[in-house]
Structures are given as structure tokens and as C-alpha cells.
């Protein structure tokens, strides 16, 4: 919870000595609250005040980087319970668990498939993030399987074993890749912590409830292990959602440092549909890492798309390049529909134009990612802006007519637009769903 200027003032010497450059301690406190001046500007500040302010500057949920090469990714540092309050910052890492009791060929085959899971959507590349190897046999097999991982994927890796000796062996050979260790539990945390500390690796902490979990993170902190990720073990989905929500609330609403870490959820279901639904719930509800087993591309695409949606910044909508897009087998006579460059608007119009099966052009005007009515209100989708796009985006060179279809919601600009652009303006439907029948009737 952020301290107010007044809270900070109470911690200052209140002598108004002006050495910080400001007239009063209160004025200095206000600047500290805004984080525009560092506490060091005050030569007389107490150690207590300094510690409190430093703690306040630390994120409520620790930022943790996983992996070491170009595939590394961040989790944590989240600041809100609901995305509309600001945004969710670091997208859930989606990872795969591979059991070490599969044959070498099988493991290689899976890794090959996992490596290929990359998708392009709305101008963004969607990727998977992590591969975990899970011990099911002896330490020797776990070591061999870890080698297979190191040699066959560049994705960050995670080592899953309850045997400290096996985990250590695997950590030794993979330390350069900064593997995530799984996991420290009540029964073995001192031994596992020693491995994490020796190789400077992030560590998952597992306990069935948040009481035990906070106890463990405190113990681990005392042992010098601070890169932690929280896991509440195997339980029904609704209980898991409750735990993830409670951990997030503890960190954000109570500044509970013992639970101020990202969390991890292992999906229990194995049917691809069930797996996707369960993973989806954890992505929506705060998991920093979600681990699944299935690697069907249709399943993974749906999971990554959900993550893309949930982690889109509500204040910065996705945009596309403003230009003239040909849809289908267009000719010089094909109709031209104008819309904004807000991805959702554009793709909605696109889907309907395609559904109508009548070739057409979509002219996407640069509205800085605003939708039709918002952009119109902000004067980014008015007669001037559209005329400018008609001239600058080469429309006249490509089409042989002078008709332009505008969204029904901006019918009011038709007169102005006709005057300024010299095009004949046709008012289209208000909703994109009306486009197919509109285009049909136009012919």
C-alpha cells in the first residue's frame, strides 16, 4: 500500500532545516510520495524512515526473471486485482511438463513440437515460455532427461524433483540456463534452498495453504533465497482460484511480504479441452506460470490467445497499420469501406467482409487505436482525417470509382466528407454484422 505524503512526513525530522532544498519537511514528504526526490536528500533522516521508504519502493509482488538467454521472461510485479484498474503487466508464462520416464526419442519429439509452438495474431507473436522435466525414476534418468532438455530446446527450463541429490545434479549441468527449481517443501526446504543458493536459482515453494506457504517463504528468506514462486499444490480448480486470488490480495492489499511473489499453477486435467479451460482460469486469475502437458497446436493457440487478451493493456489498444487492405479477389470496381486502425474494429469488419464473400477494400484510417465513435469524438475519424487517408494511402491509384462506404455510426460526417474528399459517401450499417447483407444489396 502506497504511503501518503502525510504518512511520510511523520517519519521525517520535522525540523524544516531546508537542507533538502525545500522549505519544509512537509513539502519534502510530498515530493517523496510522488517519488520525484530520493530520501538521501535529507541528511538527518532516521534509519527506520529509510527502511520503511525503501520497502515501499519495492514492488508488492516480486519481479522474477526466468531463463538466461533470449527466451527469458519476467513474471510478477503486478499491481492490480482487476485489469481495468490499470493493467496486468507480465503475461503468465505457459510451460509444459515432460515426464522423464518417456524414451529419449519421445522426449525429443515432444520438445520438437513444443519448440514449434509459435503463432502470429493481431500483429503479435505468441510464444510458449518454459519446459519442465519431471522426475519419475532414478536420479540418473533425471540427469539424462535434463541433458536432453538442454540440448533440444532454447526455452527456459524447470527441474521437478523431490530428491535433493537428483535436483542438485541436474542443477549443476544446467546452471547457465538459470533453471527454475521445483520445489521447496516443509520436509526438504533447507536442502533445496542450499541448491538454489549455491547456483543462484529461482525456486518454487510448495505448501497446501497460505499459512504454511508464508512460513516457508520467511524461512527461505532467512536462508538467503529470495527469488521465490508460490505453489499451493494439487487441489480442485475453484480452490486453486481461491488460493491465487488470496495470494494476490495478501500482496496487494495487505503488503504481506511473505506472499509477495508470483505464483505457479500446475494444470491437473489431461483432456485437451479440460486442460485449456483449467489453464484459462489460472491465466485469468493471477498465475505467473501455468504448466500443462498437452502440445496440440489448436489447444495451445487458444490458451496463448486468452493470455494475449487478458494481458492487453486496457489503455493502449492493439492497433494495425493504417492502409488500404484488399479483401478477396478485388478489382478496380470493388467497394471501399472505411474504418479505424483499432485492431478489434478492423478485424471485426474484416471478418464480416470475408463472410459476405464479396471482394472489397477496407481503408484503415490512423485513429491511434480508437474505435469508430471514440475516434470520431476525438476528431480522429472525421472528414479531414478520412480525406487525408484517402489521399495518402493511394486509394485513387487502386480503385476506379469514387464511392466510399462509412460506418453507420458516423453518418453525420457524410456531407463534410463528400465536400472535402470529392467521393460519393454511402452510409453503411452501424454494426459490422450488417456488412454482408449491406454489400449484397449494394450490388
Amino acid at each position, binding site marked *: 500500500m502506497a504511503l501518503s505524503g502525510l504518512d511520510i512526513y511523520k517519519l521525517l525530522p520535522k525540523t524544516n532545516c531546508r537542507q533538502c532544498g525545500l522549505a519544509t519537511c512537509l513539502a519534502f514528504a510530498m515530493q517523496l510520495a510522488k517519488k520525484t526526490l530520493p530520501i538521501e536528500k535529507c541528511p538527518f533522516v532516521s534509519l527506520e524512515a529509510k527502511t520503511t521508504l525503501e520497502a515501499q519502493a519495492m514492488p508488492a509482488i516480486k519481479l522474477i526473471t526466468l531463463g538466461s538467454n533470449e527466451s527469458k521472461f519476467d513474471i510478477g510485479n503486478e499491481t492490480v486485482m482487476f485489469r481495468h484498474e490499470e493493467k496486468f503487466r507480465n503475461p503468465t508464462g505457459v510451460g509444459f511438463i515432460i515426464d522423464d520416464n518417456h524414451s529419449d526419442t519421445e522426449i525429443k519429439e515432444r520438445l520438437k513440437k513444443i519448440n514449434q509452438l509459435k503463432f502470429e495474431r493481431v500483429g503479435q507473436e505468441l510464444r510458449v515460455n518454459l519446459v519442465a522435466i519431471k522426475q519419475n525414476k532414478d536420479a540418473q534418468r533425471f540427469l539424462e532427461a535434463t541433458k536432453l532438455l538442454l540440448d533440444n530446446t532454447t526455452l527456459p527450463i524447470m527441474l521437478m524433483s523431490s530428491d535433493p541429490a537428483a535436483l542438485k545434479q541436474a542443477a549443476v549441468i544446467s546452471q547457465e540456463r538459470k533453471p527454475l527449481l521445483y520445489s521447496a517443501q516443509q520436509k526438504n526446504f533447507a536442502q533445496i534452498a542450499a541448491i538454489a543458493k549455491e547456483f543462484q536459482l529461482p525456486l518454487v515453494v510448495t505448501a497446501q495453504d497460505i499459512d504454511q506457504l508464508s512460513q516457508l517463504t520467511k524461512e527461505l528468506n532467512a536462508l538467503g533465497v529470495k527469488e521465490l514462486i508460490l505453489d499451493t499444490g494439487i487441489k480442485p480448480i475453484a480452490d486453486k482460484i481461491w488460493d491465487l*486470488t488470496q495470494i494476490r490480495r495478501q500482496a496487494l492489499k495487505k503488503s504481506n511480504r511473505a506472499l509477495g511473489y508470483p505464483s505457479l499453477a500446475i494444470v491437473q486435467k489431461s483432456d485437451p479441452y479440460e486442460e*485449456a*479451460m483449467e489453464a484459462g482460469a489460472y491465466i485469468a486469475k493471477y498465475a505467473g506460470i501455468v504448466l500443462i502437458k498437452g502440445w496440440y497446436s489448436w489447444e495451445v493457440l487458444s490458451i496463448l490467445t486468452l493470455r494475449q487478451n487478458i494481458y492487453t493493456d486496457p489503455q493502449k489498444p492493439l492497433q494495425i497499420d493504417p492502409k488500404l487492405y484488399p479483401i478477396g479477389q478485388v478489382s478496380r470496381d470493388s467497394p471501399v469501406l472505411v474504418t479505424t486502425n483499432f485492431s478489434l474494429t478492423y478485424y471485426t469488419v474484416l471478418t464480416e467482409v470475408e463472410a459476405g464473400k464479396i471482394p472489397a477494400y477496407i481503408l484503415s484510417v490512423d485513429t491511434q487505436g480508437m474505435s469508430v465513435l471514440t475516434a470520431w469524438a476525438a476528431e480522429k475519424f472525421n472528414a479531414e482525417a478520412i480525406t487525408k487517408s484517402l489521399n495518402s494511402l493511394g486509394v485513387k491509384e487502386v480503385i476506379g470509382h469514387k464511392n466510399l462506404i462509412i460506418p453507420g455510426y458516423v453518418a453525420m460526417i457524410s456531407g463534410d466528407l463528400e465536400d472535402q474528399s470529392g467521393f460519393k459517401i454511402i452510409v453503411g450499417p452501424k454494426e459490422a454484422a450488417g456488412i454482408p447483407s449491406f454489400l449484397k444489396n449494394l450490388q
Partner: protein
Amino acid sequence: METQLVLEKWQGVISTVIIGAKKEEGGSRSDTVKIGGQITMPLLFKEGATPNKPRIAFEISDIAPFDFDEELIATYGKAVNDPFAWADICVNEYKAGLLCLKMQGTHPDFGNKSPESAAKFISALLSKVKVPLIIIGSGDDAKDNLIMPACSEAARGERCLIGCAVQDNYKTLVASVLADGHSIIAESPIDINIAKQLNILISDMGLSLERIVINPTIGALGYGLEYAYSIMERARLAALSGDKTLASPFICFVAQEAWKTKEAKASSQQGIIWETLTATSLIQSGADLLVMRHPKAGQNVSNYIEALFKG
């Protein structure tokens, strides 16, 4: 040391809306469907009561649908040409607890069915199918204003859920729903202020807030899902904080959006998972009624709901 749980204490409660009326209630349905009534954010069972599960309504149409993907047509086969056979499959084979009927054939472009024949169709369907009914117009405002009063009257006393009322076309529908004892769907374009405003306008006409279900207008997975997701969360938070004018359950037209996407059309499994995950993500943000098409997606979501509510 025991960690003190952070619990939200809300003063608001979401309205309970009942769809369908049994014989003793003046209708002829075999069962009723109750939605809403929760006093906490979705799926946080340890924080407060969620007395009613989200429910799935299977979507059917009075004419052969033109916006059904090949996968869906293949699944239902010839039944899509016969709404009665189609309804029968949904209820008996796929165990639909309620049906969502779209009166597509009344649209000027798609058959332009008269109010009389629409009413006749509703009566026939009600006599053949016994589950509660959601009835949706064709989306042509002028024509809906002729058709929907006739449909509403034909279903008088059956406590249907009828839609969709929109900000600039709600009066005719509200009057019919009020007269014939139904509930209404209030549709707003991913806009919490319009949702609130429309609920106020409707209740000002005398239809109580307990008879309104909000259609927040959703986008499919990958196509703006997050907008509806956050609008629903915001509306739900406002409702639980005590804003009665937003305390309505949500209906989400999942399938029509999901099956429009390129991804859904790519393969049978991808279509099913697209519809499935769109639905479950909206459950996470507060959906109470999900209008769905593919039986496998319906079954996935229904199993998921059962699992969530079991523990």
C-alpha cells in the same frame, strides 16, 4: 502465525431471474431455470454464496441458419432445416436445460416472416418442447417491433427471456414483456454506462429490475473478449457495491461470436475449443447464461461448471 484472510464484504446482491413457468405457475414448462443471486465475485465460493450455477442455452433458429460453420452443420445434420427436430436433438440428445431461439426467418432479408406466422411458430415450438425458452428477434429493429409482440403474446405466461432491448429501441419490447409476464434482455454495446442507463429506462416503464438480464455484447476469444470481460467485472463490482441498476445477471452470446472467427473455422477441434474457452473465460468474469451451439463445447463447459460447483 495464522495469516489473516483478505475477505471482501459486499452489500449488493445480483438479482435472481427465473426463466420458464411450470403448470402451477401458469405456464407449461417441465422445469424452470434460475440464474443470479450471487453475493460475491465469480467462483469465490469461500467468500459468499453463489446459489445458482451458470447455465447453457443451446441456440436454435426458426429457419436453417446461414451463419453456422460447416462443423456445426455437420454436427446437427439435416435437423437444422427443421427447427422442431433441431430443438428435439438439443433437449433429448444434448440435454439442453433451455433453448435460445433466434427468429432469423422474420428478417426482411431472410424470409420476412409475418407476425402471425412467427406467433404460430412459437406456439408450435412451445407445445413440442418443454424446456424454458429464450426468444431473440432477427436484429432488424423495425421488423422486430412487429414480430416480437406477437411472439411474446404467443408465449404468454411461459416466463420466457426475450430480447434484445437496445437503447434506441426498447419501448415496444418492454411493453410486451410486461404484458405477457416475461423477462427481458437489455443489450448494450460493451458499455457499462449504457447498460446502466438502459436498465433504468426499462425499470422506469414498470418492468422490475428482477426481470432484466444484461447482454453486455461480447467478443470471442482473440476478438475483443477482454473488453466484455472487464466491462462485466466492472459492472459486477459496482453491483456488489450496491448499485442495483447494474445488479442483473449476464447473458453472453458465445457461439455466434466464437464461430465467426477464422480460428474456429480452421478445424473442428479448434472451433470447439474456441467456443469452449470463450465461454469459460466469461464465466470467470461473471456470465450467468451462455448461449452455445456445438454440443461438444456445451458438454465441456457444462462439465467444467459441475466441477467448479462440486467442491
